[in-house]
């Protein structure tokens, strides 16, 4: 009988003292886990509910505010060209959202607008780390990821304006659309966490067809409290499926600080309970996000299972455009404003001379042109025809061929097992 080593290597490199045989051990055995933390600074913040002297309950804040913004961590993978591409996506992401804000103010948007301000590095760099055959499913703040993966600013704009030519033709809004034919994108779902088992299933479907793919999705510091997050990640871990889960810890979940969402320091610690690698990056550092995601993607491609990456940053606007975020201690915004991901990356590129100031200006101008053009196109699209409202609930015969993304399952043909008679659960006779 082969014995299993007591301290076998586990995904997160966990180790513990070898099991003694019938020997009593101290009651405080320590376990060690590696949670790589790539950040170049580790600010501590603490937000609690306190009653003010005026008798109101407000958030009270303490934190490391006096840190100087760190440099960008050098990437092990990003070439000059790729870096500039990434920078461009981030610019496009921001510019598009600024334009959405304008459109909103002009009452051209239906409903609200969600922003990823301050989180562009996280959305864009992670999406850029995916390979062609990989899948992703954005959350509402990952509008940059859509651009990276081949959608146009006009697609997003038309969604917000509920136009006929939007990807969903007005059936849904915001960045709630997807594309299984070309861009391997699963549409966002409002219910937080639902995408996690779904992306796990996408990876499962690919593996059944003989391909280990990466399936990337994001979840907030708030959304990770949902049960489906747990179910999905655990299933991915058990099945060793290539889920790449980026936990976007932007310190707030709508109006609620992280302290009221979980009782641990770092959400990366959650990885331990699933036996998957977990790590921490600075979500405002595009290089860290890119490298960490790329390594997770590579792991997925090698069939080594899921990875949890906690990206720390700050939601720099309210929950959506209607929310002035008056509950957020202003010092926090101040602190993070100095860590603007685009400004930091710009400085990094300029500093490395990968980008000259002139090239930078041209890039910015070009991005603005593109957004303006798209805006014109988007505005020109008509509203949908009401006759479309009842259509499309079902995929009726002929409506869609079902395409096997990776060529279909090639079953290993086995023996001559035949269907045999079987017994039902007896006490339900």
């Amino acid at each position, binding site marked *: 009988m082969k014995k299993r080593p007591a301290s076998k290597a586990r995904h997160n490199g966990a180790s513990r003292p070898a099991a003694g045989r019938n020997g009593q051990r101290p009651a405080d055995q320590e376990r060690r886990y590696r949670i790589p933390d790539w950040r170049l600074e580790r600010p501590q913040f603490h937000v609690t*509910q306190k009653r003010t002297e005026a008798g109101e309950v407000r958030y009270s804040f303490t934190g490391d505010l006096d840190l100087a913004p760190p440099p960008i961590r050098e990437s092990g993978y990003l070439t000059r060209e790729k870096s500039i591409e990434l920078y461009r996506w981030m610019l496009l992401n921001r510019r598009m959202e600024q334009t959405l804000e304008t459109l909103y103010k002009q009452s051209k948007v239906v409903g609200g607008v969600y922003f990823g301000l301050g989180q562009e590095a996280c959305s864009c760099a992670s999406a850029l780390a995916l390979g062609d055959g990989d899948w992703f499913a954005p959350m509402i703040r990952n509008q940059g990821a859509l651009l990276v993966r081949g959608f146009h600013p006009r697609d997003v704009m038309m969604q917000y304006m509920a136009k006929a030519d939007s990807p969903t033709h007005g059936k849904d809004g915001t960045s709630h659309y997807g594309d299984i034919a070309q861009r391997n994108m699963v549409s966002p779902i409002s219910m937080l966490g639902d995408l996690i088992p779904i992306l796990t299933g996408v990876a499962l479907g690919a593996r059944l067809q003989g391909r280990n793919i990466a399936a990337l999705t994001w979840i907030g510091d708030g959304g990770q409290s949902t049960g489906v997050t747990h179910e999905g990640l655990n299933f991915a871990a058990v099945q060793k499926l290539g889920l790449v889960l980026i936990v976007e810890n932007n310190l707030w979940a709508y109006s609620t600080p992280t302290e009221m969402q979980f009782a641990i320091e770092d959400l990366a610690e959650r990885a331990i309970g699933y036996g998957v690698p977990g790590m921490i990056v600075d979500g405002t550092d595009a290089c860290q996000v890119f490298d960490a995601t790329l390594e997770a993607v590579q792991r997925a491609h090698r069939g080594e299972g899921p990875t949890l990456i906690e990206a720390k940053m700050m939601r720099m606007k309210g929950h959506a455009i209607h929310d002035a975020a008056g509950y957020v201690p202003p010092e926090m915004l101040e602190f993070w404003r100095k860590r603007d991901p685009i400004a930091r990356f710009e400085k990094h590129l300029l500093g490395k001379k990968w980008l000259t100031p002139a090239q930078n200006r041209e890039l910015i101008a070009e991005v603005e042109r593109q957004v303006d053009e798209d805006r014109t196109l988007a505005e020109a699209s008509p509203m949908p*025809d009401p006759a*479309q409202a009842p259509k499309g609930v079902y995929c009726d015969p002929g409506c869609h061929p079902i395409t096997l993304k990776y060529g279909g399952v090639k079953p290993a043909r086995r023996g001559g097992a035949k269907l045999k008679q079987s017994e039902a659960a007896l006490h339900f006779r």
Partner: protein
Amino acid sequence: MPAVTYLEAIRLALWEEMERDPNVFCIGEDIGIYGGAFKVTDGFIDRFGAERVIDTPIAESAIVGAAYGASLTGLRPVAEFQFMDFIACAFNQIVNVLAKSHYRWGAPAPLVLRGPSGGGVHGGPFHSQNPEMWFVKTPGLKVVCPATPADAYGLMKSAIRDNNPVIFFEHKFLYRRIKEELPNGGGDFTVPLGRARQARAGRDLSVITYAAMVHVALEAAEALAAEGIEVEVLDLRTVLPLDREAIAETVRKTSRAIILHEDTLTGGLAGEIAAIINEEAFDWLDAPISRIAALDTPVPFSPPLEHAFLPKVEDVVREARRLRAW
């Protein structure tokens, strides 16, 4: 007392109940310092403290489970869903735990699950649903869908004081669109659960409806009155338990019935009511019962699509004319 909106009526009822009974407490996402996504509990935390206005992690099953657990110790929790669409995330707890609690083991569950539902605000497929039928279908629950500020106030008080799990759907389209003076000069009053209200008297035809559609029915009734068709509008107010007598009575009086709801048609409440009418007033019926409801689709986002999706005044007018001519 000045007129209050539908939303203010709900806030007021909730506030007064918390003042009256220290065992009432609120639990939900962003309901504390922020006061809730729609600001129903704005300022509550200042008055009642973080102990009784509990901001939770985003975990609907935990919210419902914890509310139920607290109710077992004798408290009366009021749990908010940020949107009633998210009640689907706590569905199992509601239909399997709360609804069966008293029947299975005699444990009452005096709690309220409340939040905004309904469309017409371009909220799209995940922020516009009318999920009442998931619960009307489940014995052991009570389900409330008020249409007016006064009813919202009085029903909220009854819901909180009830010893059963009550699901309280607040129609978000109505939140700030309708206003009225509360009866009883602003003093405490309740509206009993399970009793419909005659929103308008008429002799020619009954429109049986609830929530935002009551206002559509009333508008249609105005228009039809000009044509000499006198429509009676019955506002169900509570959709579980249903007020069978009131339904029977109005149909026996008018012999023609339209059932109108904002929820989708198939499997909607209209079927249940059609069956009740059939059982209670078959011999009085002079025309088939007409159902007017939303399209059998998810709620589309774009305004022209959502407009096509929702039942409209002209639908009621058209059906009323058709039935009248039957």
